[in-house]
């Protein structure tokens, strides 16, 4: 209990610090690269990077469903969580809005490959119906949100969970996955649009500098929400989590 109090006061402090660091609001960036805004060669390149992960992801999901049919609903929850979170445009300290990704939860439960499919479904929905992101840039956006983000989440979770601090591991995994997604997006834009002076690095500094600040509070929010869902899973789905070899029997907090 003390610990969560500590965490929430830290959050308050962090929020204020961030706010006072910013003298005047600047505009940030939305999370997805817009339709048509990647040169053809880059668009194709990122599609080529993404497709193998997608195919592996389909196989991974088929395997999970075959071996544990009772996991279907939890897979659905992982996808739905990403659906909800990426529909929420949350105001941030830079005076613009952006949205979380929600891919951390599924990556922790089912591994990063499963999320490459679920995450790209979310992106497809937004590209087709909302003109948010795009079909030509879907490959690039999927690499950042559905491949790299979940991989970071999984790695961070495994690393911290060893110490037995489950909730901290979940929080850090989700928050860092969210941030990593944006770093990759910045990098993709920087590679496609190197600055005249300073090249890719200067562009990256420009995109990432804005991204990082806009995204920090959202990443923290995403971490908190994921822990919330995690608490619920521990209360009602302890068996499933144990089957997924996740839940250490001893409560650490």
């Amino acid at each position, binding site marked *: 209990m003390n610990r969560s109090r500590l965490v929430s006061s830290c959050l308050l402090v962090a929020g204020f610090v961030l706010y006072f660091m910013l003298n005047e609001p600047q*505009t940030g*960036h939305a999370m997805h690269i817009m339709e*048509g*805004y990647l040169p*053809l060669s880059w668009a194709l390149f990122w599609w080529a990077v993404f497709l193998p992960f997608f195919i592996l992801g389909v196989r991974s999901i088929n395997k999970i469903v075959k071996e544990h049919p009772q996991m279907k*609903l939890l897979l659905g929850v992982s996808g739905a969580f990403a659906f909800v979170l990426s529909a929420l445009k949350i105001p941030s300290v830079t005076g613009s*809005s952006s949205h979380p990704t929600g891919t951390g939860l599924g990556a922790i439960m089912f591994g990063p490959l499963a999320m490459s499919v679920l995450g790209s479904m979310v992106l497809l929905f937004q590209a087709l119906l909302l003109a948010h992101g795009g079909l030509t840039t879907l490959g690039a956006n999927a690499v950042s949100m559905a491949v790299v983000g979940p991989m970071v989440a999984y790695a961070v979770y495994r690393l911290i969970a060893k110490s037995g601090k489950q909730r901290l591991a979940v929080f850090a995994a989700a928050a860092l996955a969210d941030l990593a997604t944006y770093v990759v997006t910045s990098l993709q834009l920087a590679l496609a649009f190197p600055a005249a002076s300073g090249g890719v690095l200067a562009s990256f500094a420009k*995109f990432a500098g804005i991204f990082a600040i806009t995204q920090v509070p959202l990443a923290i929010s995403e971490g908190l929400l994921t822990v919330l869902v995690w608490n619920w899973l*521990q209360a009602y789905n302890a068996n499933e989590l144990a089957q997924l070899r996740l839940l250490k029997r001893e409560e650490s907090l």
Partner: protein
Amino acid sequence: MKKGMNWLLLLGVVVLAAMPLLFIKDSEFGGADGAAEEAIKEIAPSYEPWFQPFIEPPGGETESLLFAVQAALGAGVVGYAVGVYKGRTDKAKK
């Protein structure tokens, strides 16, 4: 399971979202797609987008409808799962 912790988690999320609204007065908090375009135009003034979305929501209202639909779909599935698992656990306790 500590009830209090969950409320604190939610409070943290709300506070994080509300603080910018309270403190930053002269901003519309636009979804920043437009700003990304600006940055690209600065770096590469000659770049022309070569592909247009097939369907573009005609305005803010329709767009917010679709975002609400997306959130509702997701929340519906999550809510359904919460009900299923809670029912299962309650049954097991009897």
